């Protein structure tokens, strides 16, 4: 397994927010995390990249328990794109993406060709190379999101954690980013709200509800009308798309 989470609990104050979660992702696969607002998706992602300490349970990257990994070793293999992260500093797109090289450089080692290549490739992947010198605070919401993703790619991770990466993106870029992530030879865990996009791109899905996994497995097994009614409180009609052969979900208003 590339990432395995077993029986993990995490609480803030007295409320259990991650309430005994176990999930696994095989190398190179893409796991979609679904669930209503406040179900614990962001919290789980923070636990997996070591930003928060689990109260109990084990999180492993490859074969190593992350509590035994130094911060820097985690950063060399896991990249994380937060749901919202912004800055008041006058940084350019290039400055922001270059930050992704931080874990691969010593405090005094100079910038080198590998760093340059990684940054340029990352900018190309998200289509922001020609905007490299634009200032962060002049970017649109979707452009900022793409820059964050480029920073994560410049980190050259084995595991990529994305918290709602399609947020703010127009439909073309939503499709582009998710097919890019699906294509990359990395293991990825992606929190998503759009069930159709999840069904189209993810290899497996896990649905969270009140800090627990209520369904996990292949998209066609997980996405059922009953589950959507139970978890999201919405009536849905699901069919197999004649076009891409994945699940297609339509919502009913009556």
């Amino acid at each position: 397994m590339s990432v395995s989470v077993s029986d993990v609990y995490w609480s803030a104050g007295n409320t259990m927010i991650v309430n005994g979660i176990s999930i696994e992702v095989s190398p190179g696969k893409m796991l979609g995390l679904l669930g209503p607002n406040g179900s614990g998706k962001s919290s789980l992602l923070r636990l997996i990249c070591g930003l928060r300490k689990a109260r109990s349970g084990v999180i492993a990257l490859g074969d190593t328990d992350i509590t035994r990994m130094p911060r820097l070793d985690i950063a060399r293999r896991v990249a994380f794109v937060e749901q919202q992260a912004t800055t008041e500093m006058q940084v350019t797109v290039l400055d922001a993406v270059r930050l992704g090289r931080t874990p691969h450089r010593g405090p005094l080692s100079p910038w080198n060709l590998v760093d340059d290549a990684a940054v340029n490739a990352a900018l190309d992947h998200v289509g922001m190379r020609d905007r490299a010198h634009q200032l962060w605070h002049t970017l649109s919401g979707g452009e900022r999101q793409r820059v964050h993703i480029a920073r994560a790619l410049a980190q050259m991770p084995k595991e990529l954690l994305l918290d709602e990466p399609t947020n703010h993106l127009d439909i073309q870029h939503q499709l582009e980013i998710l097919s890019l992530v699906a294509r990359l030879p990395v293991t990825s865990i992606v929190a998503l709200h759009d069930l159709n996009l999840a069904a189209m791109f993810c290899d497996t899905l896990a649905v969270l509800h009140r800090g627990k996994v209520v369904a996990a497995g292949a998209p066609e097994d997980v996405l059922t009308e009953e589950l959507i009614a139970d978890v999201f409180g919405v009536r849905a009609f699901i069919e197999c798309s004649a076009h891409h052969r994945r699940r297609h979900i339509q919502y009913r208003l009556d």
Partner: protein
Amino acid sequence: MSLALSQPVLIGRWWWARLALAASTILLLGFMISLAVSIGEISIPLATTAKAVANRLFGASFELSRIHQGIVWDYRLSRALMAASAGAALALSGAILQALLRNPLAEPYVLGISAGASTGAVAVMILGFGYGVLTLSTGAFIGAIIAFVLVSALAAGAGGGADRIILAGVAGSQLFNALTSYIVTTSANAEQARGVMFWLLGSLSGVRWTDVYLAAPVALVGFLIAMFHARALDAFTFGIDAAASLGIAVNRVRIVLLGATALMTAAMVSVVGSIGFVGLVIPHAARFIVGPGHGRLLPTCAMIGAIFMVAADIVSRVIIPQQILPIGVVTALFGAPAFALILYKARRPA
């Protein structure tokens, strides 16, 4: 791409531009220090200054009057080097605090760290726990740390967030200034009180070599610590979680850097009093020249800070004939309008 969208950085990616910047700031600092040594009630030609310095440093034996030798070496040169050290240290402290707290208005004076250091120094000076340079700065260091911890706790209690720390700093400054006044009015005699009040406004009078021997190494060590963490400071651009996910040991880095900031502030306050706005304005000026990357920003801050402070000292001595203005008054006269400008530019779009 339109100009308005691109980065307003004067020095770009050209190595020769950086080299020229480094050379010109070093030359300018050297020139300002020579000027500071030559200008005064008794004006001394630059050549005499050079001879006096050569006599002391390289054991040269130029014929000079004892008075000139004494004024250059014992009074003016030590004073100019103290000003340079304080300017560099305060500008570095501002740059570090702005990066770690992610707030463009952060600096030791605004956050009440200088006020805390003053209280600590005054407590030692007047309540007297053994008088001397080192104990004075130790008192200032303890005061600075207490002030920072208190202000941080107040900001966290008020809901955290980048804006809160400034409000908490205002409250902290008021509290520590009140404490200082309390100590002075209840325990000091008239002569002590006058001396303390003058020193509190920021004053370079009475600076001796022993002060420089304390301040210059502290500024240098602070600079080296900050430079070693330049990449870590960059990594804080998008917040603490972003820094941590880039592999930065955020707690260790924050403790080391905030400690270095408190040390630099305390050392400078214990000698020259609390001087405002240098730590705020210089980092912004430096960012305008070299951009936000700390590898270039920190040395630029140190150099511009030093140059600015030596220049402010010259102004404080010549602006009113026969009288020396406290240097804090001069930096505030320049700094307050600059503060307003930064405040205006930092406002969020509606």
